[in-house]
């Protein structure tokens, strides 16, 4: 769908909700749930916290819907709320958003059971484990760029980070992932 198409359907949905059709907000949740889930799940682990965050994010979106100015897609605006809410959550719990990630994660192999490690040789599984070890922001950026296939401009609108910074973080995240995967395979060969 073109941007104009997005904006048109966003306007219809938002106008309907602002006219008093609260149930219409369920459509907004359905349309944005996948993207918001990616942001929250990549930055948090505890399910109760995730539930609280999802409720908080959509309540904030509903409360501030009248201030949405259609300058971006509705999904991008809600993803921005999700990102800021989750960052606040991490800051309150003093969890570093961009922790100093080890280029080669020592615990990555050490904590693995040798038998299960042999079974888990699937590249995607190894990569999943490597991604899980990344700092929250890197995880989110990798997910938004490679899985959600969002352009840097849209990621920039969601995270309020300059496009150059996003590119730089993505480069670093990929280097860490590549090194972790190489380390994993080398350890297996030994």
């Amino acid at each position: 769908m073109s941007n104009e198409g997005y904006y048109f359907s966003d306007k219809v949905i938002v106008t309907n909700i602002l006219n008093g059709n609260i149930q219409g907000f369920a459509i907004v949740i359905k349309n944005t749930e996948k993207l918001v889930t990616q942001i929250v799940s990549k930055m948090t682990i505890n399910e109760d916290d995730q539930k609280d965050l999802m409720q908080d994010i959509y309540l904030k979106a509903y409360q501030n819907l009248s201030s949405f100015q259609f300058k971006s897609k509705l999904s991008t605006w809600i993803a921005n709320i999700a990102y800021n809410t989750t960052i606040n959550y991490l800051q309150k719990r003093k969890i570093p958003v961009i922790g100093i990630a080890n280029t080669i994660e020592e615990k990555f192999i050490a904590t693995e059971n040798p038998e299960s490690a042999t079974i888990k040789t699937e590249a995607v599984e190894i990569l999943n484990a490597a991604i899980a070890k990344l700092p929250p922001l890197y995880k989110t950026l990798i997910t938004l760029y490679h899985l959600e296939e969002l352009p840097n401009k849209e990621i920039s609108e969601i995270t309020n980070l300059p496009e150059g910074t996003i590119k730089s973080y993505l480069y670093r995240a990929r280097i860490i992932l590549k090194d972790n995967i190489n380390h994993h395979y080398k350890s297996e060969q030994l």
Partner: protein
Amino acid sequence: MNSIHLTDEMLQAYLLKEIHDDSIVTHLTVCSTCKDRVEEYRFLIDSVQKIETETFSFNVTALAMNNIMRYAKRKSKKQELTFWGLLIFLLIAISSFSIPFIPRILAIFYSQSILTILLVIGTGLVVLLFLVADITRQYKTKKDKIFKNNLQPIL
């Protein structure tokens, strides 16, 4: 053998088609180290794209909508309480202000015949009914304008 290799940033940018530089292509054809590194990145990017997107075990829509409905109910109750509170306050204020004038108004009626009093009350009721009917009609017209024809947004 090449002693100068391409940076990780250059290799990634080349793979993601963020840069188009013939010198990178040329270098990759002659440098096996960089070729291996670019293959490692290609494998990484391909694998990342194969990862299934995460979903929560709970129903996000139901959870969020319940929370929103609770909020909307609370908000509506609060608005209702504010409205009635304000109305009662206004009624009490107006009544208190009117008390000193009531004997003077009643004195006007005492000096008149029953027929005149009935005529005044009747005229007052007709005017009141006319005003209520007019306000209701205006309210309905405005409500229709606001809620029925606004689904076509102005682009």
